[in-house]
């Protein structure tokens, strides 16, 4: 398989990578909360998931995945195909604002 580094293909690839990472994180989050109630032996897992560095990466990935998802919706259901590259950067600008707000709230 070959990837072409144009805006759309790169956005698609990042959507996959952030989706996989966030998906695994959230499964571990469910496991960690389950263990907190019924066992308590996975303290290390919870500490890892709650670490500041991990939280910052998760926040960035979540914001990217959500906003690129919105962009995909506009491309699929609206007229986004006509301006999807410009839309990508608009979403990234919105994402940056959310990211900064999230960092302050963390």
């Amino acid at each position: 398989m070959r990837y072409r580094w144009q805006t759309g293909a790169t956005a698609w690839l990042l959507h996959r990578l952030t989706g996989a990472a966030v998906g695994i994180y959230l499964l571990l989050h469910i496991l960690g909360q389950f263990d907190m109630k019924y066992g308590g032996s996975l303290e290390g897992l919870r500490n890892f998931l709650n670490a500041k560095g991990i939280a910052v990466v998760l926040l960035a990935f979540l914001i990217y995945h959500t906003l690129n998802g919105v962009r995909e919706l506009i491309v699929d259901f609206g007229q986004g195909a006509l301006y999807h590259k410009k839309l990508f950067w608009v979403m990234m600008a919105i994402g940056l604002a959310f990211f900064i707000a999230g960092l302050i709230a963390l």
Partner: protein
Amino acid sequence: MTYPATGNGGAFNWLFQRISGIVIAVILFIHLGTVHFGISIVDLGTPAWKVFHLVFVILLLYHILNGFWLFIEDYVHTPWLRVSLFGVSWVVGIVFFIMGFVTFVPFGS
């Protein structure tokens, strides 16, 4: 060439990935604001919040596992492995649903 376990070609999955994604985005925003960022403190033991998290977990597991299924569709072409991973994703979905359910539904009791 057709590969096993592709069902109806994924039209429903394609649409529901978008619908679940929209709902998850809204729920996640509320989940982060209340449970994690503490912007508004709420009692997670009330029925409404249990339903909220029940819907959250169901849609999230669907969205995650359907996403993983897209990886399998694109990168795994060995028939028996595709079928096996399809089965694994169902097991993961059921196990994690049960774990989520017993974690937040008995809250406050």
